């Protein structure tokens, strides 16, 4: 019987360990690639059909670290009279009338947000195309994340383009 | 014909062994099993020195080279200056290389040992020949191809 102590202890240990790993794998990074937005906004329509430029709405992308989300007023400037019958647009107008900003869900975010400082401006100025990171947005009826934004991915591109790989470039 | 001789006394066992060898039985056909290592046997049977040491040597060399290469490569892969030292600062890396030398030397000789003695062999686990504390000499007949 005593001879079984070790095997028992060990097997128990390993079982626990495996359970732990499985749980970890399960709960790791569960944020969805395509969050459900308060308003079912379609980039496809606005870019492909209407033919708007990215910078029409995200007008700070080449000036600021953040591309920026258009103010509700901008949406209303057209949708006061465009497609007012659609329920989605009515949602929008409701937000506008209640003077509430639209609580858009974030699609792209860094795992350790607090420590990474990414500048849209620099990348646009470097002549990078939006699709390099955000994928073919103009074909997306619903915005979805195409990149996990892992450091290795950033670095590989930086190295390929002789961009700085000094840590303080992104970490502050 | 297969012969098996059992002894309780070590000296008797050794004498018999010597006789056998003198009588022209090639050591290759003699298998002995002892309760504990008896170094005389090696002299009598003139077993060639174990090839294990070559495993050790190889392991050590590999460890050394790997250590030297790995440290340098990882440092160059993303060169970061620390304390004004050069990217490849040899003194520090020598230590790592040495450690790896010993590590691989050790591990590979052990693997080599397992390889040479065919351990762990399923047979020896399933039907262990039990001679207790006795000294055994087994003589196999010449099998000819």
């Amino acid at each position, binding site marked *: 019987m005593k001879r079984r102590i070790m095997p028992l202890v060990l097997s128990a240990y390993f079982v626990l360990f495996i359970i732990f790993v499985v749980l970890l794998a399960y709960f790791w990074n569960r944020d969805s690639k395509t969050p459900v937005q308060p308003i079912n906004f379609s980039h496809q329509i606005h870019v492909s059909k209407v033919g708007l430029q990215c910078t029409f709405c995200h007008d700070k992308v080449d000036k600021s670290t953040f591309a920026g989300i258009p103010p509700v007023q901008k949406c209303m400037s057209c949708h006061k009279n465009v497609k007012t019958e659609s329920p989605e647009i009515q949602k929008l107008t409701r937000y506008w009338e209640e003077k509430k900003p639209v609580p858009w869900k974030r699609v792209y975010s860094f795992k350790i947000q607090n420590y990474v400082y990414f500048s849209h401006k620099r990348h646009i100025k470097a002549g990078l195309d939006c699709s390099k990171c955000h994928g073919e947005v103009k074909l997306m009826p619903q915005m979805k994340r195409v990149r996990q934004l*892992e450091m290795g991915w950033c670095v590989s591109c930086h190295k390929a383009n002789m961009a700085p790989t000094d840590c303080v470039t992104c970490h502050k | 014909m297969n012969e098996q001789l059992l002894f309780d006394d070590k000296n008797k066992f050794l004498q018999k062994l010597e006789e056998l060898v003198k009588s022209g039985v090639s050591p290759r056909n003699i298998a002995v099993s002892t309760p504990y290592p008896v170094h005389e046997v090696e002299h009598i049977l003139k077993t060639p020195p174990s090839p294990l040491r070559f495993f050790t040597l190889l392991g050590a060399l590999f460890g050394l080279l790997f250590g030297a290469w790995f440290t340098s490569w990882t440092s160059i892969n993303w060169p970061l200056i620390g304390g004004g030292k050069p990217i490849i600062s040899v003194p520090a890396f020598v230590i790592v290389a040495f450690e790896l030398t010993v*590590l691989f030397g050790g591990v590979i000789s*052990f693997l080599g040992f397992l390889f040479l003695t065919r351990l762990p062999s399923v047979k020896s686990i399933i039907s262990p020949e039990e001679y207790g504390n006795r000294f055994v000499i087994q003589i196999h007949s010449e099998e000819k191809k």
Partner: protein
Amino acid sequence: MRSIDYNEQLEHEVLAALRKPNPWYWVALVICALLFGMGLTLWIYQMLKGMGVAGLNNPVGWGVYITDFVFWVGIAHSGTLISAVLFLFRAKFRNAFNRSAEAMTIFAVMTAGLFPLIHLGRSWFFYWLFPYPNQREIWVNFKSPLIWDVFSLGWVGSLRQWWHYNRLYIFLAAFATPLVISVHSVVSWDFAMSIIPGWHTTIFAPYFVAGAIFSGTAMVLTLVIPMRKIFRLEQYITLNHFEKISQVLLFTSLIVTYSYIVEFALAFYGDHQFEAAHFTYRLLGDYQPFYITMLICNSLIPLTLFFRKLRRSIVYLFILSIFVNIGMWLERFVIIVTSLAKDFDPYSWGLYTPTMVEVGITVGSFAMFFMFFLIFAKVLPVLSITELKEEASE
């Protein structure tokens, strides 16, 4: 000349240790397990709350945890040395201690290995210390002594395969000796590589190796003596064995004492005001009691081993070994804490007092060590039977 019946009897008695279940054994085991559990809980608490639950502060960034680490590594290597070095010298009496020493090695390494993790501010990222291929393409800093540690601990683990076969043994023993010496040198470089007065000195490597053998030998005694009693192995672990061991103890004690003297000599002979100031502080400063106790335990008490009578008195050796263990733990504590408490800039000087969390985790680590040792005592033969037979046969 002795014959089989001796061997059979030996086998019987040694293995007897494995069979008989003793109520006290279970009590001891449970107590150890509980304390070990407490240690773990405290560690988790520390991770959730923050390093602050330990007594560490701004000047003194390392304390009890690193002390424990060095202490256990020391014990581990001494175990290895006992089995390896003595084998190389064909010291027959070694066989008696072999198994315990080796088991000790493994358990001590396991315990020691925990402390670098425990003392991390963010233990959950411990794996960053290993040079594994990662998407970040960031490797480890091979210039850092801590990384050298990671490797050195790496191999001590791999030593466990030794105790299978003699033939291989000789090879590995040949490796083990320089290996162990270098491992402990590396640990000592954790300190020697820094620029802090009291740490930054070239004598640390030999100093620590000697210290390791010293403390390790003591720990062997602490473990073997009760074991010998419990399992009635008086016949196989004889007084001669103990005498030999205590001679080793005495010898290493003298080496350690020598290094204590050298430290001070260097400080005051070399014209370096920071070094001199530090050693004055170590001797007369806030931590004087610890330092004095350490000197008594490590340098004075072992001198008594010059008397053959005491060398052969089991009880005395046991008590002495306890003292030495304490002394050696204090040695590391004093080296680490006093050096940090008062370094270059007087403004940032500060004192360090361990908290209950640190004490608890330390106790837990001892509990873990003894727990494994108890299990080992029941599951495997305490003495290496083959080796005893071999020895007996000559």
